[in-house]
Every structure is written in C-alpha cells, then in structure tokens.
C-alpha cells in the first residue's frame, strides 16, 4: 500500500498547457444538451493509504476539458471521500436552487461490510464516478467554482481552510433565509412533486428491501447447491455404470452454482447501488423543495406586510421585488432540474431493470446449457446398454 500525505495530492503529472488552448476557448460553449461534451471526468484507481492516525482510500480523478475555466486540457488529482463530501456541501451552499446529486452514504448501514474490501471500494468508486458525472452533465453545476477547484487543485486543503471567498454570493441570497416563515400552501405543481417524491422514495425503499431479500435467498440457495452437487459425486464413487451420469449431474450443479454466484454478485454490485442512489436522490430533491418553500414563504410574508401598511398606493419595495425574483428563479431552476432528473431516472431505471432481466436471462441460459450438455451423456449410456 502506498503511503501518501494527507489530502489530495496530484498523482499524474498534468501535461503543460497545450497550444490548442486558444482554439479550445473559441470552441467553448454551453452545449451541454447537445451531443458535444466539453468536460469529461472519471474516477478510478482507488488506493489505500495507511497513516499513523487513520487509514483511508483515495481515488484518482481525471478531468479532460476544453472549457476556458480549465487552464490545462487534462488534470489528474487524488481525492478521498471527505473531499467529495466537502464538494457536495459547497455545491449545496452555493447552488441552493439546484438539485445536487447525492453521495454514497459514508458508512454502509448494518456495517458488517469491510470498508477496505475490494468489492466495497469498487462499489463506492462507481458511485463517486456517477456523482461527478451527474455534476458534469449539469448545465449549471458543472460551471461551479468549487467543482473546478475540486477537479484541479493540487492541494484542496488550502482551499478548504481559506473557507473560499470565491463565488458565494449566489448562495448567500438564499442562505440567509433560514426559515421562520411558514408557507401557507405549496403551489399545486410543487405539491405534486413533493407527493411524487414521497411515494417514489417509499416504493424504491420497498424495491431495495426486496432486492436485498432476494440476494439473501439466493446466497442461501447457493450454500445449499454447493452441498448438493458434491453429494452426487459421493454417490458416483459407489456406482459402476451410474458413476458417469452421477458425476455429470454433480458437475452440472457446480456450473449452475457458479452462474448463480455471478448473478448475486452482479445484483449486489450493480443493482443495489443504483437503487440507493435514487433513494438518496429523492432526499436531496425534498430538501431543495423545502428551501424553495422557505423562499416563497419569505416572499409572501413580506408582501403581506406591505399590504398591511394600508397605504393608498402600496408601493412594493425593491427588497420584496427582489424576493419575488428569487422565488421565480428558484422555481425555474427547480423545475428544470426536476425535469432533467425525471429524464435521467427514466433512462437509468430502464437500463437498470433491463440489466436485471438480462442478468437473470444469462443465469438461466448458463444453467440451461449445463443441463442440456449432460443429456447426451445420460442418454448415450442408456442406449449403450
């Protein structure tokens, strides 16, 4: 295991600013919805670090971009989970009107899982990769200053200590709304979103539980199969003419066990994490919805206050107008994000569920092949008599 000093240390050497950067700048455009992408981020190469104080994993984050915000066409840095956590909270702070993708949970609940096991690290790597890709695909979040720092800074700790006086103004306007106002009624549109999210999270939670239970049943089934196959071998040792057929059945059950193990591994590594991500996603969505309500509540309260002054010609102060702008801004951002999220969700679930079906089909095909292959063995012997 590699021992590195704490913090994100650039692993790969970035290539010097290329001469094509001018061209890149010319090409730069906010073309997220189109086919062309100009920002590519991948998370790979997890490494374990053992320090005196703690043991942790860092991941390599490679960024390729033609955007003007990036001085170099390619960056490679190493980050650990808590850096991702920092990024997410900064994004939440600075882009309060937007839906910030969820991070995988810090600790796996029912923590029998070894945090440093290969499977766990790989599952987390995939989730972190997905997290960054979701931000990368977002027309607003991908331009966030903190995100840029996260992808490029050699020493992220320096920024973290500074507390970053970068672009926090966008956030401030909403941040200071810390409740105190109570919204009378959510507009229908958002009430519907809220209700949708409640049901969605509930159903997804159920699916998650079912999937876990299936995996549990499959693993127990696997345990029995692993005992079942060898019994045929034991039997075959007693027999003459039957030895080969029995051995064949034993091998066949062995093949089926292997196929089943692959299926459960796939389910654990590919199916469950996506469900978890979407459960967390709906939580993020709910919290944005709550913030929106607060902003609207503040606006409504202020508007009411103005009305109460009973002036002949009630003049709406600029402050209140600003408030209204904020509500409208928020609504627009939220709706756009919700729509984007719905699209992603539909595609992700289509892919996920088709994958689930595919994995099961593959499993049955492997078993089918195994059983079909022993039929001639059994029949041949039969006719040979």
């Amino acid at each position, binding site marked *: 295991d590699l021992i590195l000093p704490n913090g994100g240390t650039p692993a790969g050497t970035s290539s010097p600013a290329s001469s094509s950067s001018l061209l890149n700048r010319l090409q730069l455009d906010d073309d997220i919805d189109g086919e062309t992408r100009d920002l590519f981020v991948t998370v790979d190469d997890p490494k374990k670090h053992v320090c005196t104080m703690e043991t942790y994993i860092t991941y390599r984050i490679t960024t390729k971009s033609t955007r003007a915000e990036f001085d170099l066409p390619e960056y490679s840095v190493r980050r650990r989970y808590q850096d991702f956590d920092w990024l997410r909270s900064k994004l939440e702070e600075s882009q309060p009107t937007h839906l910030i993708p969820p991070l995988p949970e810090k600790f796996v609940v029912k923590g029998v899982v070894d945090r440093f096991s290969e499977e766990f690290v790989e599952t987390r790597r995939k989730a972190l990769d997905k997290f960054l890709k979701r931000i990368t695909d977002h027309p607003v979040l991908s331009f966030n200053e903190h995100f840029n720092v996260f992808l490029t800074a050699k020493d992220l700790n320096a920024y973290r200590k500074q507390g970053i006086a970068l672009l926090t103004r966008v956030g401030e306007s909403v941040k200071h709304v810390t409740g105190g106002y109570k919204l009378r009624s959510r507009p229908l549109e958002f009430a519907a979103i809220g209700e*949708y999210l409640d*049901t*969605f999270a509930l*159903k*997804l939670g*159920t*699916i998650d539980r*079912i999937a876990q*239970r*299936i995996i549990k*049943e*499959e693993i*127990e*089934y696997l*345990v*029995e*199969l692993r*005992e*079942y196959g060898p*019994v*045929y071998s*034991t*039997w075959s040792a*007693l027999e003459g*003419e*039957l030895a080969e*057929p*029995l051995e064949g*059945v034993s091998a*066949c059950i062995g093949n089926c066990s292997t196929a089943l193990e692959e299926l459960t591994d796939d389910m654990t590594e590919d199916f469950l994490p996506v469900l978890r991500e979407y459960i967390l996603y709906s939580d993020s969505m709910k919290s944005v919805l709550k913030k929106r309500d607060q902003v609207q509540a503040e606006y409504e309260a202020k508007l009411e206050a103005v009305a109460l002054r009973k002036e002949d010609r009630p003049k709406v102060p600029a402050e209140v107008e600003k408030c209204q702008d904020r509500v409208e801004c928020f609504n627009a951002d939220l709706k756009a994000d919700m729509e984007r999220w719905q699209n992603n969700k*539909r595609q992700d*679930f*289509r892919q996920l*569920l*088709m994958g*689930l*079906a*595919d994995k*099961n*089909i593959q*499993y*049955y*095909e492997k*078993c*089918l092949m195994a*059983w*079909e292959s*022993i*039929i001639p063995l*059994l*029949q041949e*012997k*039969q006719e040979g*008599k």
Partner: protein
Amino acid sequence: MEQAPPDPERQLQPASLEPLGRPDDDDLEAAVSEEAEGAQEEGSGVDTMTENNFSLKKIEISVSEAEKRTGRNAVNMQETYTAYLIETRSVEHADGQSVLTDSLWRRYSEFELLRNYLLVCYPHIVVPPLPEKRAEFVWHKLSADNMDPDFVERRRIGLENFLLRVASHPILCRDKIFYLFLTQEGNWKETVNETGFQLKADSRLKALNATFRVKNPDKRFTELKHYSDELQSVVSHLLRVRARVADRLYGVYKVHGNYGRVFSEWSAIEKEMGDGLQSAGHHMDVYASSIDDILEDEEHYADQLKEYLFYAEALRAVCRKHELMQYDLETAAQDLASKKQQCEELATGTVRTFSLKGMTTKLFGQEAPEQREARIKVLEEQISEGEQQLKSKNTEGREFVKNAWADIERFKEQKNRDLKEALISYAVMQISMCRKGIQVWTNAKECFSKM
C-alpha cells in the same frame, strides 16, 4: 427429449402378469420356481382356485383412486385412513382390448402385510419397497400430514409402482397371495395368515436381532451389505439437501413476487414508465407462481430417489438373511465337529482337551464299557444326522446364494436403468425450469425496454 419422465406415465403401461409355468423358463426361474411353489404349499387351501384364475393371459394393474375413510380399529377406536382402489384388467391377446376384470379397495396396512409376507417367503429376493408411510425429507411448503391430498396422491402413485414392480418381477409375479391381493377383496388377510408366514418371520427376526458373528462371510455379500449402507446414507443425505435446495429455491421465486405488487404500485405515479412497470410486475407474479409447479414435479424425482433409499434396506435384508443362513451352517458344522471329537475321545479313551467329562472320569473312575458303547452309538447317530443336516444346509445355502445373486443382478440392472431414467427426467425438469425462467425474464425485459 423423447424420454418421458418415468412417473407416472411409465406406470400406465400394462405390466405383464404371467401365469405359472410360462414356456421361457431359464435357469434362474427354474431354480426359484421351487421356492415359489414352496410358498404355495404353505397356503394350500387356495391352490385350485388360483389355477382357474390364472387362465388370464395378461393383467394390467392400476391404483386408480384414493379415498379417505373412517372406521373402527381393533380396539374399537375411531380412526381415519386412506383406502386405495386397485383395478385390474385382463388384456386379451386377440384384439388387445382390455376388459375390466376386477377392482377392489385396499388400505396401506394391507400393502404392508403383503410386503411382509413376500419378504419372509422370498428371502433371496430384493423385495420392492413400499412408498413411505409418512412424508419424510419434506421442505417447508410440503405438508407432513399423511392425509394431505398431495401426499396421498404421491403415495397412490408409489403404491401402484410397488404393485407393478411385484407384477413385473419374474418370481414374485407368480405368487398366489399377490394374485389374491389383486383379485380377492374379502378374506385375503385370513388367507395370508393361514400361510403361517408370521411364525417363520418371527423366529427369523428373533435370530436376526441376536448378535451373531459369521466366521467365513461371503465377500460378495459383505460388499453388498456395505454398498447398501453407503447407498442408504448417500441417498438420504441427497434427499435432505434436496429438500433444503427446494426450500431456498422456493424462497428466491416467491420473493420476486413482491416485485409484482410494488411495480404495480409504483407504476401508478409514473407517466411514461407506468405501463412498462405495470406489465413487468405481472410477469414477476407469473415468475413467482411458476415455482409451485416446478417443485411439484421435482417431488416425483424425490420419490424415485426415496424408492431406492428403501431398496437399500431391501438389499440389506437379503444380505442379513444370507448371513443368518451362513451362521446356521457354521453352527451346524461346529456342532458336528465337536460331536465327532467327543466320539473319537470316547472310542480312544484319550482326552485331548480339558473338559468336565474328563474331570468326572478322573474323579469317579471309568464308566462301564456298555455305557460307553451306548453313548458312542448315540453320538454316531447324531453325527450321521448332523452330516445329513449339514449337507442339506450346504445345498440350501448354495441354492440361496445362487438365487439371491441372480436376483441381485436383476436388481442392479433395474436400478441402473431406473436411476438413469430418473436423472434424465430430473435434467429435463431443470431444462424446462430454465426455459420458463428465460421466457419470463425476456417478457419482463420487453416491458422494461418500453419504459
């Protein structure tokens, strides 16, 4: 795959029940027909009747129905039992038409009596086992209640299989008691008991229970006994694990059924995804319920294995009887040897071994020559009787070994054939389960792809 699963289709085929003295007598049958006739002698009261009924060329046997009944038992207690309808049809040679000749009801205990009778009267035959009295090696979904309809149905098939096995056995099929079991409803029990087989059984059983050690066991039988022990242990292990496998598989399928409900509920809040989810949920329901049939089919396989589990016991019974016979022979030989020695001692007046007799001789002096002569005479008579006995026991033993081994060979062939067939049908079941699985998931995938 043309191979039909052996149960129950195979059993629908007519089993031939040949009359006595079929033309194609081979060695084996010639050898054992004496035995069969021996059994007949014991139940001589029914001899003539059998002759008449055996004019039938062929008989088809089926256990076609099971019926729950309530009656009073020996101590006049109310009891519930299951009666099975046995139908026999004669198959005429000319047109192949079958005519219902008889149908009667028997209960499990009567089958047991029949089998016990066969076991005693045909010690050298691997007597087909009965299906289990109570369900064993069950997984949680199966009821262990012996009034459970599924169990009764499986036992009906098992009892039919038993009758067909006996009917297709070259020796057992000629047994009169068996024939009457199929054709004479009343008084059958009395007829069986008149054969006096119980007495024979009891004395033999007592001897079997006593610990005895054979000095020169037949290696073939020792090996066979070892094999039956091993077979029994491996098959019961297999059945135990299979029941657990079935349990788990059931769980895997049934939990998938929960997807059906939740997909349907989820679909209610989705727009574009709704229809796909809803119909995929339906396929998950289908998937979950498909396991019931799959495991029901598998139970037939388990029953086939169980038959051989019980066959292992039947095999061991033959070995034990051989051992008993060998023990008798050895005891007789030993007895004879010691008598010969005594006789020699008396004749020569030398005592080779220290004995009580030697002591008395020394203490009380020689007995009179007349007395000695008389004793020698008695001993000589006993010796010649013993030699005769030993000779006949030897012949009997050789005969037993020959007959038993012939039947064991027959059994081995039957076993290899049956178990191969069972394995094939098991593989076919697995294949059909995989196909069903592929089908359901392909349908579900189709629905998901439309989301």
